């Protein structure tokens, strides 16, 4: 594997967008995502694609930078269409250039988080076998002993005559591998095609008020499905991505929204939780703000309503999605937030939903079953894992999301937890969400997560409780409520109060980590010992 270091010395603006150069050779394929990017770059040439506090990068610059990356990749003697190129770059103009440059070279982008643990990194590299790893000098880790890195100075080769062929991959061809956690602990690569990425971006552009003058403050990493979705939609709209350092703090996010005059913001529920707990969202006006979106997890209805109230007149869009469906699948129109409490909304255009039983038969309204989705945004499958693909994708194109849901008579969908968290207790099927929902409904200041644990040969639950505010948790009262409301087999064996729940790198509650906190559970995994430094 070769290592490519991307460097920007000075940002020199120039009028040349290589789209024309490509067209001279042959017409660009409109179902190639990078070709669409070049079209936008040509039309929005001088408009900032990426803006920070210190400067901005125009569409023209990003297109030239992407072309530099393409030239490097195509000039390698081993260059082959479909080769994987790993991108381990923080959100930056370099990332955008590397992403589209990779696609322009007919390669497949494999975005990786910059803080990926060594073991995970090894597993992903082993699975995807990339030819090249693209990084920034600042992120260069000397422990990587693959080869001598090649340094590429971006956008310095502007105006060169193009002698290389335009991209040929299109439509159903693989464009991107998105690694997510598999249920068995090994990473699973979600295979997304050019068509997947284009279709989902177009559906979202249809759903959200994203206009060419949109300025989206980005906190989500581009290497995640949701962050990638923000990148693709805003680039295809010819809008501006606002990047800022130190958006770790709720106060910094609010400051950046105000000072950079952001028109939109998207985040996962936990970030909104932080904005409500430690931020002062709504205290100072955000006149430029038009809308915010949440996805990547369920945001409790009362918190969603509170955010919607605090950001008025800007709108708040609750969305639902999955990496396997490129990014986003459904959206709740803001005016429905108070009517359809807790709903994930309706499928966005181009997406079809159905609630199905175990034999893939569609269930009527108000019946809980497996939420299935179909559309051009549904992945090609899992990378080199036909068994997992067959479990998830039906022959007629339905994606089994793994989420349980029902739809109401008007076609709005509501989630009921993950199907694969179902636990059998003494022959009864129990879903942790049942216990959690009971506690959270009766004690709104408490978050509850029920973890299945084995006691001897039987499975029971431990209920973890975390405060949502400063009020102490009354365990005795919660236990009393559970004893009153739940049959004995559903009652938690233990109640554990913790300050906050551990989160996964995707900011979801880390149930696996919680399971290790169950009293008596093995706390150290053999794998952890192997990766610990002495």
């Amino acid at each position, binding site marked *: 594997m070769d290592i490519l270091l991307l460097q920007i010395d000075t940002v020199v603006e120039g009028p040349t967008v290589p789209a024309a150069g490509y067209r001279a050779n042959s017409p660009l394929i409109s179902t190639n995502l990078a070709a669409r990017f070049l079209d936008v770059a040509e039309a929005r040439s001088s408009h900032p694609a990426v803006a920070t506090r210190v400067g901005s990068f125009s569409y023209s610059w990003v297109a030239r930078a992407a072309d530099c990356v393409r030239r490097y990749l195509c000039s390698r003697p081993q260059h082959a269409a479909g080769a994987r190129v790993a991108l381990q770059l923080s959100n930056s103009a370099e990332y955008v250039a590397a992403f589209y440059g990779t696609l322009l070279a007919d390669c497949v982008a494999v975005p990786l988080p910059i803080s990926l643990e060594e073991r995970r990194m090894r597993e992903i590299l082993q699975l995807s076998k990339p030819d090249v790893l693209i990084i920034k000098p600042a992120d260069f*880790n000397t422990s990587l002993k693959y080869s001598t890195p090649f340094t590429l100075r971006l956008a310095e080769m502007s105006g060169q005559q193009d002698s290389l062929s335009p991209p040929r991959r299109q439509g159903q061809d693989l464009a991107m591998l998105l690694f997510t956690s598999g249920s068995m602990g090994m990473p699973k690569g979600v295979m997304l095609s050019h068509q997947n990425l284009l279709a989902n971006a177009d559906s979202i552009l249809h759903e959200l008020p994203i206009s060419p003058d949109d300025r989206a403050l980005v906190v989500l990493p581009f290497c995640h499905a949701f962050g990638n979705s923000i990148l693709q939609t805003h680039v295809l709209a010819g809008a501006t991505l606002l990047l800022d*350092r*130190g958006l770790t703090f*709720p*106060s910094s996010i609010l400051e950046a929204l105000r000072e950079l005059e952001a028109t939109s913001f998207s985040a996962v529920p936990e970030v909104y939780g932080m904005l409500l707990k430690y931020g002062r969202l709504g205290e100072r006006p955000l006149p430029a703000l038009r809308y915010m979106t949440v996805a990547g997890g369920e945001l409790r209805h009362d918190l969603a309503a509170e955010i919607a109230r605090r950001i008025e007149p800007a709108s708040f869009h609750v969305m639902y999605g999955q990496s396997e469906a490129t990014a986003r699948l459904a959206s709740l129109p803001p005016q429905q937030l108070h009517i359809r409490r807790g709903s994930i909304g309706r499928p966005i255009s181009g997406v079809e939903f159905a609630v199905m039983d175990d034999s893939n038969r569609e269930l009527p309204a108000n019946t809980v079953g497996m939420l299935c989705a179909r559309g051009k945004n549904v992945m090609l499958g899992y990378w080199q894992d036909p068994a997992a693909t067959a479990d998830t994708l039906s022959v007629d194109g339905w994606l089994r999301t793994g989420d349980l849901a029902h739809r109401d008579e008007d076609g709005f969908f509501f989630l009921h937890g993950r199907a694969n968290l179902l636990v059998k207790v003494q022959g009864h099927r129990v879903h942790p969400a049942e216990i959690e929902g009971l506690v959270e409904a009766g004690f709104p200041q408490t978050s509850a997560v029920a973890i299945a644990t084995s006691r001897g040969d039987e499975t029971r639950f431990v209920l973890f409780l975390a405060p949502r505010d400063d009020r102490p948790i009354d365990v005795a009262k919660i236990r009393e409520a559970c004893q009153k409301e739940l049959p004995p087999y559903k009652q938690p064996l233990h109640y554990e109060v913790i300050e*906050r729940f551990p*989160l996964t790198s995707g900011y979801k509650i880390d149930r696996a980590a919680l399971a290790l906190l169950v009293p008596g559970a093995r706390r150290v995994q053999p794998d952890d010992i192997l990766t610990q430094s002495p």
Partner: protein
Amino acid sequence: MTADRKGLEGDLMHFVQSRGARYTQATLQTDLLESGLLDSLLLMDLIFHIEEAYGVRFDSDQVNPSNFRTIEDTVTFVLKQKSMPQA
């Protein structure tokens, strides 16, 4: 947990450094923001750890860059809070 400066520095350094390879180089004066080491996950973990181990609670005005830019800044903040009567 005792909250003398030396002990606190050692504890928080260990807390940050033990998060993975990227963090082992962190020193008391490393700018955690400039270096990109402080993400919201570490921030929330730090708040949790400090609240639990030292009984210091943060209000929204105190979760800001000046209290978390370096480990030293956080130590100084915790010591200041510890020396004040808790509400």
